[in-house]
């Protein structure tokens, strides 16, 4: 057993342990520990990824002295490593970019709690990515939920607490359904490890006993996870939660937390139930319809929104709709497109949040479009970042968004169910144009110059890169990441494909 195979275990335990240790550290050390741990996890995941691409396939890691059906296990393949890598990069960048705002918005005595929460969030995300055991997945889903709630309401004004309550209610409903589904799955199969469950599920479907309860169970689990990841009818909590929490939290929530649940859903589809059974059931069609609704609804309500951060949040409702639409296509290509969209959206949306906060800072912290006029000149780097993000969202070539849109469209056109082709392509077109409307409106708005006298009278302060080197660096890294995803998408798509093959 090569030493690199310890990486998943190490990265989970390491991030957890750092969270535990941070509880007794003062905030400065906690901050450094947190940064170091995230960087380390990223580096290790990169190492693991290179190793797995070299040898191919995937491996399981026994958590304890007892082999498969008895003890816990974690499992790592190329896709998991890629996810861990990108997630840790994005988490690091979001934290760095929002650090200054964190100082302003959260009282200093609670900073180390903030870092505990981020450490545990990272560990739970890693566990969701790597785990091979359904019940472990449930426990870490709960950790994920609680820490996300903490991240929302650590900046304490009424809005965030109310948003946290709404978020908790929704995600508790989701995890209730998920837990019930897991218990029923256990009841039907007698196992909790994914691979064993899959075997017996195949057996059950083959011999036809328990077919009805199996389908209902799959439905329960799917609905639970899609509630937790804010699919269209269940998104009421999202705009407030993302729009008013402190910016790093917003970036991490929108780009990582919901994506973690979606990735777990993919794992369940492939490794627990078996994708063929899923495709034969109608669940994917339901997801498809809701995804399309989300794409339209999110974009439309983003257009009416007058507050830049709420607008970005609504746009992420639409993006989650894209992902589920990709599931709904029910083909391998659609799944690949969705996974790529997960990465793309994670990268772009966090960049949008971070640069939006830069723009609002130079407009006396007001997030309304009227005040944002000309902020692109007051804070050049944030303006550039926001522009790049918007272009990527609109799907201009050379940026990440274009690739994922093309993947979706190719998947849709190559789909063998012709009834799905036209809805997909038409809704893609409509929602892309809607994206263009609200994002480019914002971009033009921030580049319309404001009368200098008015600026002086408003007392807008100008952004000096020398003052905030870290922020500028973060935005540049985000742009680089986006361009990498956009230009060199080929190897990444390749990794995703082989990863999905390893899954099933």
């Amino acid at each position: 057993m090569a030493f690199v195979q310890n990486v998943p275990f190490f990265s989970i335990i390491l991030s957890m342990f750092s969270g535990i240790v941070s509880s007794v550290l003062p905030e400065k050390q906690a901050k450094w520990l947190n940064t170091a741990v995230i960087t380390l996890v990223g580096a290790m995941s990169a190492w693991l990824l290179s190793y797995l691409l070299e040898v191919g396939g995937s491996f399981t890691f026994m958590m304890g002295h007892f082999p498969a059906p008895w003890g816990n296990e974690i499992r790592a393949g190329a896709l998991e490593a890629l996810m861990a890598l990108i997630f840790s990069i994005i988490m690091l960048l979001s934290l760095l970019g929002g650090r200054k705002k964190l100082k302003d918005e959260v009282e200093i005595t609670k900073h180390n709690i903030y870092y505990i929460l981020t450490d545990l969030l990272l560990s739970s995300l890693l566990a969701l990515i790597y785990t091979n055991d359904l019940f472990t997945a449930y426990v870490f889903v709960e950790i994920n939920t609680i820490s996300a709630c903490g991240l929302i309401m650590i900046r304490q004004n009424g809005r965030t607490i109310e948003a946290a309550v709404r978020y908790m209610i929704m995600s508790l409903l989701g995890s209730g359904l998920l837990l019930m589904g897991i218990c029923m799955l256990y009841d039907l199969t007698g196992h909790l490890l994914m691979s064993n469950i899959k075997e017996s599920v195949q057996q059950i479907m083959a011999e036809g006993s328990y077919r009805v309860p199996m389908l209902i169970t799959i439905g329960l689990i799917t609905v639970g996870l899609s509630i937790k990841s804010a699919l269209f009818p269940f998104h009421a909590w999202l705009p407030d939660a993302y729009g008013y929490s402190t910016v790093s939290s917003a970036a991490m929530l929108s780009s990582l937390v919901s994506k973690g649940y979606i990735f777990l859903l993919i794992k369940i589809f492939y490794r627990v139930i078996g994708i063929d059974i899923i495709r034969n059931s109608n669940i994917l069609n339901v997801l498809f319809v809701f995804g399309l609704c989300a794409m339209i609804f999110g974009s439309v309500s983003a257009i009416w929104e007058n507050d830049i951060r709420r607008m970005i949040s609504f746009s992420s409702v639409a993006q989650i709709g894209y992902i589920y639409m990709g599931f709904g296509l029910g083909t391998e290509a659609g799944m690949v497109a969705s996974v790529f969209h997960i990465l793309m959206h994670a990268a772009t949306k966090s960049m949008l949040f971070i640069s939006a906060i830069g723009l609002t800072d130079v407009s006396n912290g007001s997030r309304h479009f009227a005040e944002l006029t000309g902020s692109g000149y007051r804070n050049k780097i944030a303006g550039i970042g926001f522009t790049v993000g918007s272009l990527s969202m609109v799907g201009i070539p050379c940026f990440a968004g274009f690739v994922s849109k093309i993947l979706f469209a190719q998947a849709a056109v190559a789909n063998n169910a012709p009834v799905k082709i036209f809805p997909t392509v038409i809704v893609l077109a409509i929602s892309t144009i809607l994206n263009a409307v609200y994002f480019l409106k914002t971009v033009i708005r921030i580049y319309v110059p404001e009368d200098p006298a008015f600026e002086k009278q408003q007392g807008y302060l100008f952004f000096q890169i020398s003052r905030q080197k870290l922020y500028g660096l973060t935005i540049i890294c985000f742009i680089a990441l986006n361009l990498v995803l956009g230009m060199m998408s080929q190897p990444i798509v390749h990794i995703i494909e082989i990863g999905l093959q390893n899954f099933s």
Partner: protein
Amino acid sequence: MEKIREEKDMNESRQEENKKPTVYRIWRALKGQSEEKAEELTLEREQILDEKVLEKHRLDHEKMLEKTYDIEHNPIYGFFRRFYKVAGVLCCLALIIILLVQVSYLPPVGSSSNPGSNEVAAKYIEDGLQDTGAVNIVTGMILDYRAFDTFGESNVLFIATCTVLILLRNDKKKGKDSAEAEERRDSYYEPKNDVILQTITKVLVPIIFIFGIYVILNGHLSPGGGFSGGAIIGAGLILYLNAFGFQKIERFFTEKTYKWVSFGSLTFYCLAKSYSFYTGAHHLESGIPLGKAGAIISSGLILPLNICVGLVVACTMYAFFALFRKGGF
């Protein structure tokens, strides 16, 4: 000042109440009369909120209510509410029916041929004692076979405490508000010295603690374990706090204690488990003696882990209570 006087005469009244013979008191209770001066045994809580504030809140509340639910002013909202109610009931019914259908297809309860009782359960039951050294198979399972879940679980407790800390800990510097406000708030949080409560607490708390410790230590031999025992000890702490107030309990339990105890136990838990995971994954011998089955000192790591979990849970329970009560320790 007059608060103290009230307390004094209330104590006097209670003493002369005690002077009266018990028989008389029972007889009066049978007659259905209430004790004299019973109304003095009221908690501070009602006295502290003065009427004006309450009145303001009430009016404001009513205004908001009609503002929130004025059906006649925005009919759409009214329609939405009604639709919402109906939809709610329908969803609930639909969910229940689906689940009933589901359950009616599930394997029958209590039959020994369910898929649930397969080689996994068999292995746990048959080799559990040899593998883990724990007589209590469930404890052996959650702390050795499936220890990763349990570790995550204690982290759930930990992070929940962190979030409650965020919400309820008031980081006000004591110097900020004036001394009498300070005294007032303390009197608000402190219960009145209730003789009955204190006497009973004096008797009960040691027993509760001992019982809790027993449950923790026998976690691998009998029903119970870290979580239940920790909950018991936490209940004891809470009882003590209610009886004697914060000053007394802060002599031996402060936030710092909480922090370090939970940190220490979680750290030990984390390190021990990572050691056993690592050795397990690499098929090494984790040279930890399992000891003789049935003895207290047995079953390898399970006993210390139980103790750690117990400490964490006890501290957490107490911390929850203290935070809700006062916003600090």
